[in-house]
Every structure is written in C-alpha cells, then in structure tokens.
C-alpha cells in the first residue's frame, strides 16, 4: 500500500486562490478597456498591450535574474498592474513608449523592491503613474480630444479633461453629465466611463473580491464634502454629481483603493480609509496645484494602512 499523507487539520480548502482573485479583477477591467478603445481608438489598445507586456516582462526578469525565485507572472497580478497603469494615462501616441518606463517603475520600484505581490505598501500602478506624472508632466497632461466614436487613427488633437476645463475656465465649457457618465469626455482612457467602471465593480462585489466599504466611503465622502463646498459657493466649486463622475474618483474608488494588498482589512478601517481618500481627493482638486488628486490621495492613505490595521482590530468574540 502507498504511504498516507499526514497533516494538521483542516483537510479541505475553499479552493480560493490569489490567481483566481487576480484574474477576476482582470475580467472586471475589460469593460473599461473596451470603452477606452471605443473612445480613444488604437492608441488605447496599444498603450494597454505595451503596459501589460512590459509589466509581465519586468516581473519575470526581476524574479528570474535578480531575486532568483520561481516566477509568479501567471498569478495575473502583473496584468492587473499593467492594465490599471494604462488606464491612468492619456491615450496619446507619446504614451505608447512612455508607458514602458511607467511599467518598470510600477513593477520594479513599486512592487518587486518590497518582495513582490503582497509585500508592497503602495499600489504599484499608482506608483508608476505618479512617477510618470512628475517626470513627464507635459505628455501626461496632454489629453486627446474626444470627437467621434472609434477613432482608428494614431493622430490626436489635444483637448482637455472636465476637471482641467473647470480649473481653467469655470463651468461654462463643461461637458454634460450624460457624457461624463458614459465616458464621452477627455481624460485618462480607463477612467472616463463611469458606467463601464460600475459594471466591473458590481462583478467584483458579486464575486466577493471587493467589499462595498471602501468604494462607498470614498465616493460618499467625496460627494458630501464637495456638496458642502458647492452649497457654500456654487460659482467657485464644482457640483457634487459632476465631481464624482469626472476624473479618477470612480476608477480609484472601485479598483485602486480596493487593492487588497495596500488597503486595510477590518470593515471599520476600510471605511476610515475610504473617507480619507475622498477627503484628500477633494482637497487636492480644489486647493492643490493639480486638477486631479485621486492618485495622491490613495497613495497617502496607503501609507496609513498599516496604522489602520493596528488600530482597528476586528471585534473579538465576547468582548
């Protein structure tokens, strides 16, 4: 007879795995990719491909030659980083090569430096994005105009994002709310369509990859805070509905802030984390130098995550 296996209990597993979680996230990102391609054409597709390929390649190279550990590219986390990074840049021809630098920083500095998936304190895609924004401010804020659907050309004329328009010239030239909801506005190509983001987010909620706490707290705080400001002075501040449907709040709240690795674990901590993100975003948008503040807000709250994990313990049984 063959030898028996011995192990401690339990002897069964839910069959949940990191790999499954990551590929579910990738699936949830597909609607945004399709929307990006629909509005910004070939550029969006090429940027996404370059970004994903570079992220996977850099992770593989670092694991094989620097860390000398078995590769974990198949777990799909590098693909998530690649897609999210691509979604956070303007769909211009310049970005097709710049995104490779972003991928190197995201994977190399943002993730592998700390020991790979699970060890990184900051969201790698945001680390890559902020690096690009600071190093290449011109290219990162040159927005393609959105004109017709499915523009299959690499040439783009430069336009502006709703938040940029608002910062420069006030309410007069703002796009309609419907355009902002569908995504027919300027901006990073993954963040423009609120409807695509919501489809992805609902899928993730149903598959229990994310919980509602962070997105609701994030968007809710942003809505409330900007609403208070708007009530104080509707001339100076953007109304709360436009606030949450423009810029990166939707994408950030549903996909970036909910990154398991860099967000806190207990429900209370997640709500505090979401509120902090919302508050910081509105502060940066209204009083900062940049028209958009989601990336910085999430990165700042990422830094607070270990503290939140320490302070907000789960409620113990009978305590």
């Amino acid at each position, binding site marked *: *007879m*063959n030898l*028996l*296996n*011995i*192990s*401690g*209990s*339990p*002897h*069964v*597993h*839910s069959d*949940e*795995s*990191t790999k*499954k*979680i990551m590929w579910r996230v990738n699936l949830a990102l597909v609607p945004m990719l399709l929307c990006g391609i629909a509005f910004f054409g070939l550029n969006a597709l090429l940027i996404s491909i370059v970004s994903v390929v570079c992220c996977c390649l850099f992770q593989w190279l670092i694991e094989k030659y620097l860390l000398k550990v078995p590769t*974990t590219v198949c*777990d799909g986390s590098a693909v998530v980083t690649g897609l999210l990074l691509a979604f956070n840049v303007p769909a211009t021809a310049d970005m097709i090569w710049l995104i490779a630098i972003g991928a190197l920083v995201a994977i190399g500095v943002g993730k592998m430096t700390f*020991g*790979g*998936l*699970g*060890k990184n304190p900051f969201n790698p895609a945001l680390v890559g994005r902020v690096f690009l924004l600071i190093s290449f401010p011109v290219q990162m804020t040159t927005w393609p105009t959105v004109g017709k659907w499915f523009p299959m050309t690499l040439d783009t004329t430069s336009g502006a994002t709703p938040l940029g328009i608002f910062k420069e010239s006030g309410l007069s030239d703002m796009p309609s709310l419907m355009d902002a909801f569908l995504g027919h506005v300027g901006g990073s190509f993954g963040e423009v369509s609120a409807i695509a983001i919501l489809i992805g987010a609902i899928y993730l909620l149903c598959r229990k990859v994310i919980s509602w706490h962070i997105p609701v707290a994030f968007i809710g705080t942003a809505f409330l805070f900007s609403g208070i400001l708007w009530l104080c002075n509707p001339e100076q501040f953007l109304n709360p509905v436009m606030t949450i449907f423009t810029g990166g709040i939707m994408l950030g709240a549903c996909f970036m802030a909910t990154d*398991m*690795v*860099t*967000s*806190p*674990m*207990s429900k209370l901590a997640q709500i505090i984390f979401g509120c902090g993100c919302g508050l910081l975003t509105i502060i940066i948008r209204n009083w900062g130098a940049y028209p958009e503040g989601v990336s910085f807000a999430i990165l700042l709250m990422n830094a607070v995550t270990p503290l939140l994990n320490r302070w907000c*313990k*789960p*409620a*113990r*049984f*009978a*305590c």
Partner: protein
Amino acid sequence: MKTFKMGGVHPEENKISTQAAIEVMPLPKQVAVLMNQHLGAPATPIVAKGDKVKVGQLIAEAQTFMCANIHSPVSGTVNKIDVCKDFVGLPKTAIYIDVEGDEWMEIIDRTPDLKRECNLEPKEIVAKLKEMGIVGLGGATFPAHIKYSIPEGKKAEYLIINAAECEPYLTSDYRVMLEHPEEVCVGASILRKALGVPNAYIGIETNKPDAIKLMTETAKKYEGIVIEPLKVKYPQGAEKQLINAITGRKVPSGKLPIDVGCVVSNLGTAFAVYEAIQKNKPLIENILTVTGKKLPSQHNYQCRIGITYNDIIKHALGELPETTGKVISGGTMMGKAISNLDAPTTKGASSVLVMDEAEARRNPETNCIRCGKCMHACPMGLEPYLFSALVKNNRVEEAKEHNILDCIECGCCYFSCPANKPLTDEIRLGKNKVRAWLAAQKH
C-alpha cells in the same frame, strides 16, 4: 433560524453516507483498549494478564479527578498490558484482550425495549455517569461526571445538546437521531434532570430536515426538550458558537460554558447516557461513519471500542483504494490524519474518512495578499494572518497579547486563505509556544 454571529465558512457538506443505516461491526480477534481515551490522566488497569473478562466489565479505574473508568468492550482473556501506538503514532498504555465469544455482564439490559422512567436523584445520575465511564463524544472526550458536577457558586440554566454535526462528511449523529430518537430524548431528559434545568435544547443544522422533523415529533412526548434548527454554517457545533447561537450568550475568553450558565453535550453523549443510566451499559461502543468520495460504499457502524482502524477498513471496504491519499479520524475541518492504521479506536472516534490522493494534497503556499479573508472567517474575531507572522518570528508575547489562546482551531482561516498559508498549523504551534512561555514565566 438561529446561528452564531461572527465569521464562519461553508465547506462542501459531502454528507454522502446519510442513507446508510447503522450496521453492527463484527467482533475482531483482538482489541487493544487504550488507557487514555479521555481528556485528563490515563486510567489505571485493574486486570492482569490471563484474567478472563466479560463485555462491560470494569478493567481500568479512574484514580485521579480528571479521569474516566474504562470497561472491556469484548469478552475474552487479557493477553497483555503493553505499549500501543495510537492513531497519530504516540505510545500509550493499552490492555490487549483476545476475543472469546460474546459474553456480557448480567446487569446489562440488552433488550431493545425503551425505558423512559428514570427515578435516580441528580447526584446518583452523576455518580452513575462516572461509574459507566461516560465521556463527551463531541471530540474533546471530557469526562461527563465532571461536566455535570456543577461547581459551588455556579448555576446551570441551559442544557444544550449538540446535534449540529457541522463537520463535512460525518453522519453518525444524524443516523442516531433517525434510528434512536426516543433514546436520545430520554438521554437528554436524564441530563436535564441531573442539572436541574427547565429545558434541554437540541441544536440541529437545517441540512438534516428529516432529523429535525422526527426529533420535533418525538420531543413532544417529553417535557422540556426543545429542538432548535440551526443555519448550515461551520463551525455551528463549536461549543462557544453553539451557545451563542442558541442562547445569545457569549462565553468570555478563558472562561467555561458554565460561567454563562450553559452545559453543552454532544448528541452521541446523550445516547450513551441513555444506555448507561437506563440499560446499565458502559461506554464500550461508538457509532462510526466510514465514508469517502471515491469509496465504492458508504457506511455507518456500531463498533466496539478498541477495534483497529485496519479491522474496520477490512470489513467495510476490503482494502483501501489504490489512490488513497489520507485517512482521517473525524471530519475534514478538525479531524486528525491517521498515520497508524493498526491503532485501536477510542471512545471519541467518530469516523474513518478516506480521502483521495488528489484531495489530500495541499496547494503550494504563496505570499499573503492581506485580503483579510482569514480575519473575516474567524468565528472568534482573531487575526490569523498576524499570528502567522508573529509565530514565525518567535514573538510569543505579542501573540499572547493578541489572544492567540482564544483560537478554537476550527480551521476557517486556512480554509478561506487564497494564499494557501497553513494558518491553522502555525497558530497551533503558536499556542504551544505561548503555553510553554507562560509555564516558564511561572517558575
């Protein structure tokens, strides 16, 4: 429908042996009766080599407080008193008895007649539980006479009979409910009387609707027996969770159920109590489920204690399938993997669960992704991921401060971990380290 409030998981139920009626396992040629089959000190043998014993005869005595009597499960001759490896491979003392015929003690009532009336006083009931060597059959094998001797200053208000059977695969309690509902109710009534509480609550998970129906019907004939349907959620049958589900009370850290006025016994124990008190039959048999997804047949057996796992497998299956990867005593969540199939069964045994090679392998461990699933699955509200890191780095004191000793080892954390981290193993190790550290502090 009642349930515990915090954490929990829902493993695949796999109750595939529900249709198998309880069969009587034939007598083996020899049994080995271990001297520690219960929580506490081993019993002391009172027979010697060559002695003739009958079924139900006292062969080892409880000489310390935390101990239980042991009776001969067979009739025959004592072959030797020697070291015997138990099913995890630890050496224990055992009395080996060569089986000759099947001669029972005269005092034992072997008729199937139901005996409802019990005229014993509470003290006499407890004394008889001790005499009959009754221990808790839910897994911990806590001596029943100690549990039912309520300490000075404490008062029992609730008696809870655990028939949740929340572990996957196990069906022995279910079969006992279907085949002996009256006996179980009498047993529960006797325990209720011993404690002097108004009601005995029998908690049954709703994946056993026929058992709930039958028990509810039967309970109508008895005073103070309440059937409580429970939500199907693991670990519904864990002591603290079950108390929380049925009474809403919470046993604080480091306290016992009696501190919140509760006493919990397993359904199997209630059945054993009936046989002991009403029929004078000591605890010499148990009901075992023999099951496994890849097995040709599923069984529930009534077996004499002390029969080896190999004897059971030989009778039930002929031999283990070629592809067997693991054999477990108990359920898949908290059962122990058997390393020694030549070991004898003990009072607490509840199943022989055969797992296929593929089911028996764990997936490789990957990095923790801080998803918090372990924390949300933990029915005690602990942080398994944190213990894992603390224990690996030998930070024993901090593990203690984060209440690692509250862990009930239910396995929900490992079960839900997407990184396949052996969290339950690490916590078990951590608890031992903490206990060793606490012992060292005392000296």
